[in-house]
């Protein structure tokens, strides 16, 4: 029940005294009300802004946070108030809900922030008052659409193909998204060029050229250079046919593809040629054949695969179908009315061009669209009056649905712009995410090295602390615990495949089961045979990874460790990670060498050289001998 009604309940119960003398049976005992009768003022401190309200006000809605005992969790004994670390501006609206029983949606707030606050305070959004409900729903729908667009753009077409896609899938992908491979791009431009050539040829072949020598009649170019045009046409049609067949082959669902608009346009574009080949040179049918050649102009629609603007236009027209239909219908009505009127007005005059009502249709259309060719003109006064009314009303009727179509087009166009922008920023965003991931990975590695340096010589532990927050310490400790639990080390994703392939010869290896986090980084440590080609990938900030092949036998094999970092779930944490990376000491590219007991730690070159690919000699960057406990693997080059 609403809060308002709850206020009246005591009164209604009191008025029940009126039933007592009439009661047939004895009344039941009233419920025992243990709550304190006196009302008290509660202090609610929301991020420093103090709100005060009666306890009864909050008790009106016992299913919410503030109305139930849940608020006791937030009670601060020292200050005798309830403290919430939330947005005070939003809290104002929440508290007003308790006071008035109506929840209003503040229009200047973000819809997601508002929803989160409601969820926190345990208030169901459905109780938003009627005054604000529509606005709330609209904003929510808009936000959801935007989010859906974002996720679509994220998982968009630029994602790399799964490795085991068939050639058919790859072909389809190449057709749908020409930017994926150079071949596709080339094909895309070639087809575009040929469409243009074909359309131009169609146009030019009707232009009158200079006649043959000795002949007076002017010929259209198409007949003069009949063979040339025929060859060009053939070439174009061949290309189009080839393209169509390729698309048909690659399409995941052939039936659906054949029903699609573009496929129909393709077929219509090339059919006239084949029909022309097949048809005999007969006088009767060649007339029909000439008509068919008109369909060649539909080749221009093939440009819509190449032009986004055309697609937007087509989509707009499709989505405005109702408005266009309305326009057409109202125009038709007006045309019929005015044509009838004009016909009867002009009926009597001699030599009138308004011979029939259908003949007047032409006049009406020309007048309503303000073209005014002047081939049909009213002569009577009545005709002129009605003609002027007709032209005035034409302007109005046409002007009404046009803004609707325009706004639709604008909305779709902007949506498209937004999607394009998202795709463009996609790369930058993914790069940042990758950097952030590597940052935390490096952090863990660095931590391990610092810790292990700290172990043998405990004096230097202070140096190793560096600028790490308590959070990082605890996080790294946690990852370390995981390593110990599973008896595996974190390693670099990039090395995983190589390490899988290489086998250790005569060296102990740890269990090679891999732990995969939800990031997909693999965890492995295997020995590497020194005789085999060793490659190392350095971890860099940039996207590219550098593989360095080491030829020297003298060097230690190194394993690169990469932690499975917690991926940044939100954009804010992306920011956080970026800052943290700056704090990490020095060179981001480092590796750690794992050495096992019982042999003492082997010599390891620990110069910190800048990463540069050397053809023969690998460069160890920033390696240190790390002493691990029993279960680690020793790899020494000798």
């Amino acid at each position, binding site marked *: 029940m*609403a809060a308002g009604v709850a206020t009246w309940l005591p009164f209604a*119960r*009191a008025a029940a*005294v009126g039933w007592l003398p009439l009661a047939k049976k004895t*009344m039941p005992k009233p419920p025992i009300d243990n709550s304190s009768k006196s009302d008290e003022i509660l202090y609610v401190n929301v991020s420093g802004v103090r709100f005060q309200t*009666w306890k009864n006000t909050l008790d009106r809605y016992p299913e919410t946070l503030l109305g139930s005992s849940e608020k006791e969790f937030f009670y601060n004994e020292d200050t005798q108030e309830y403290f919430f670390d939330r947005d005070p501006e939003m809290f104002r609206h929440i508290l007003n809900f308790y*006071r008035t029983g109506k929840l209003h949606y503040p229009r200047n707030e973000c819809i997601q922030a508002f929803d989160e606050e409601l969820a926190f305070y345990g208030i169901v959004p459905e109780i938003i008052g009627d005054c604000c409900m529509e606005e709330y729903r609209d904003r929510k729908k808009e936000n959801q659409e935007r989010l859906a667009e974002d996720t679509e753009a994220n998982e968009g077409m630029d994602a790399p193909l799964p490795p085991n896609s068939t050639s058919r899938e790859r072909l389809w992908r190449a057709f749908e998204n020409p930017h994926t491979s150079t071949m596709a791009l080339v094909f895309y431009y070639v087809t575009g060029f040929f469409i243009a050539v074909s359309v131009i040829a169609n146009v030019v072949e009707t232009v009158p050229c200079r006649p043959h020598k000795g002949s007076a009649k002017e010929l259209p170019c198409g007949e003069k250079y009949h063979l040339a045009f025929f060859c060009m046409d053939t070439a174009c049609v061949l290309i189009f046919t080839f393209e169509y067949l390729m698309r048909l082959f690659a399409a995941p669902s052939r039936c659906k593809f054949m029903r699609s608009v573009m496929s129909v346009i393709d077929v219509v574009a090339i059919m006239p040629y084949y029909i022309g080949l097949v048809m005999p040179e007969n006088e009767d049918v060649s007339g029909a054949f000439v008509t068919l050649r008109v369909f060649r102009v539909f080749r221009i629609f093939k440009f819509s695969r190449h032009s986004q603007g055309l697609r937007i236009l087509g989509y707009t027209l499709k*989505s405005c179908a109702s408005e266009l239909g309305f326009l057409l219908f109202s125009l038709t009505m007006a045309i019929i009315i005015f044509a009838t009127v004009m016909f009867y007005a002009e009926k009597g005059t001699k030599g009138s061009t308004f011979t029939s009502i259908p003949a007047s249709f032409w006049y009406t259309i020309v007048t309503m669209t303000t073209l005014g060719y002047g081939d049909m003109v009213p002569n009577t006064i009545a005709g002129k009056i009605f003609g002027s009314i007709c032209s005035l009303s034409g302007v109005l009727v046409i002007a009404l649905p046009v803004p609707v179509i325009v706004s639709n087009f604008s909305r779709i166009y902007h949506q498209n712009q937004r999607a394009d922008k998202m795709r463009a920023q996609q790369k930058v965003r993914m790069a940042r995410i990758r950097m952030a991931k590597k940052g935390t990975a490096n952090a863990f590695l660095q931590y391990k090295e610092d810790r292990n340096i700290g172990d043998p010589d405990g004096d230097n532990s202070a140096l190793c602390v560096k600028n790490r927050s308590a959070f990082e310490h605890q996080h790294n400790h946690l990852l370390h615990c995981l390593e110990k639990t599973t008896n595996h080390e974190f390693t670099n994703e990039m090395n995983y495949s190589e390490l899988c392939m290489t086998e250790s010869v005569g060296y102990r290896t740890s269990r090679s089961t891999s732990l995969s986090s939800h990031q997909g980084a693999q965890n492995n440590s295997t020995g590497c045979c020194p005789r085999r080609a060793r490659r190392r990938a350095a971890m860099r900030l940039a996207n590219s990874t550098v593989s360095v092949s080491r030829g020297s036998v003298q060097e230690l094999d190194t394993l690169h460790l990469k932690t499975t970092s917690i991926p940044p779930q939100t954009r804010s944490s992306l920011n956080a990670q970026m800052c943290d990376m700056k704090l990490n000491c020095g060179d981001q590219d480092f590796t750690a060498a794992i050495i096992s007991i019982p042999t003492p730690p082997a010599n390891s070159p620990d110069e910190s050289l800048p990463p540069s690919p050397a053809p023969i000699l690998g460069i160890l960057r920033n390696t240190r001998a790390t002493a691990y406990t029993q279960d680690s693997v020793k790899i020494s080059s000798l």
Partner: protein
Amino acid sequence: MKSRSQDQSLSDSRELDRSYDPLTGNPPSKPNKKTIKQRLLKLLPCCRSGSSSSITQSNISDDDELSTVRYRPEGLDRLVQQTNFTKKELQVLYRGFKNECPSGVVNEETFKSIYSQFFPHGDSSMYAHFLFEAFDTQNNGSVNFEDFVISLSIILRGSINDKLNWAFNLYDLNKDGCITREEMTDIMGSIYDMMGKYTYPCMKDNASKEHVDNFFQKMDKNKDGVVTIEEFLDTCQKDESIMQSMHMFDNVI
């Protein structure tokens, strides 16, 4: 791109036949009837401002009559004297009252709507009406805070005799000092209406009549067909169960 709410209203041609106002969705409103002269005047640009104000003024004064009424109760101290409530209790009562009725008065419609929410099973409008009459001691169609609190004081903090008096006043619809059979039938009927249709055991048609007969048999000592206040008080004071139950609701506030 269709308009959402107007879709249904314009899909049929009701507005053409004048049974339906397409803009508001209601039957065409009467107060906006204008004379032909006023309509023609509206079309002319010069007379527009002059005519419109005179038309709207009369409408406003009709509609806003209730909302411009503001009522302030007498001082808190006087109310403390007049009633048996403490100051704190009056404060709490007034806060709740003012929150629900910012204008300071309750009208019968509010009463009925409140009771319909408390008793959703049946029809509580008649009982609410009778109750409203009982509260409206000044008989002016609205209950202000004083009436409200004085009645509550009688019910909750008064002596048993006061409470019985109040109950008698509730039953006595025309406030003439005696309850006739018709009045009792009305009251009983309204109470039974609140029960609604679905009861156990099934509500028989003569249930309320039976109850009224029962009541008169019990209360009407001299069998003259009416129950006077003395008979009522007398019978109730002798009835143990009634006397005991009189204190039941004392703690609601």
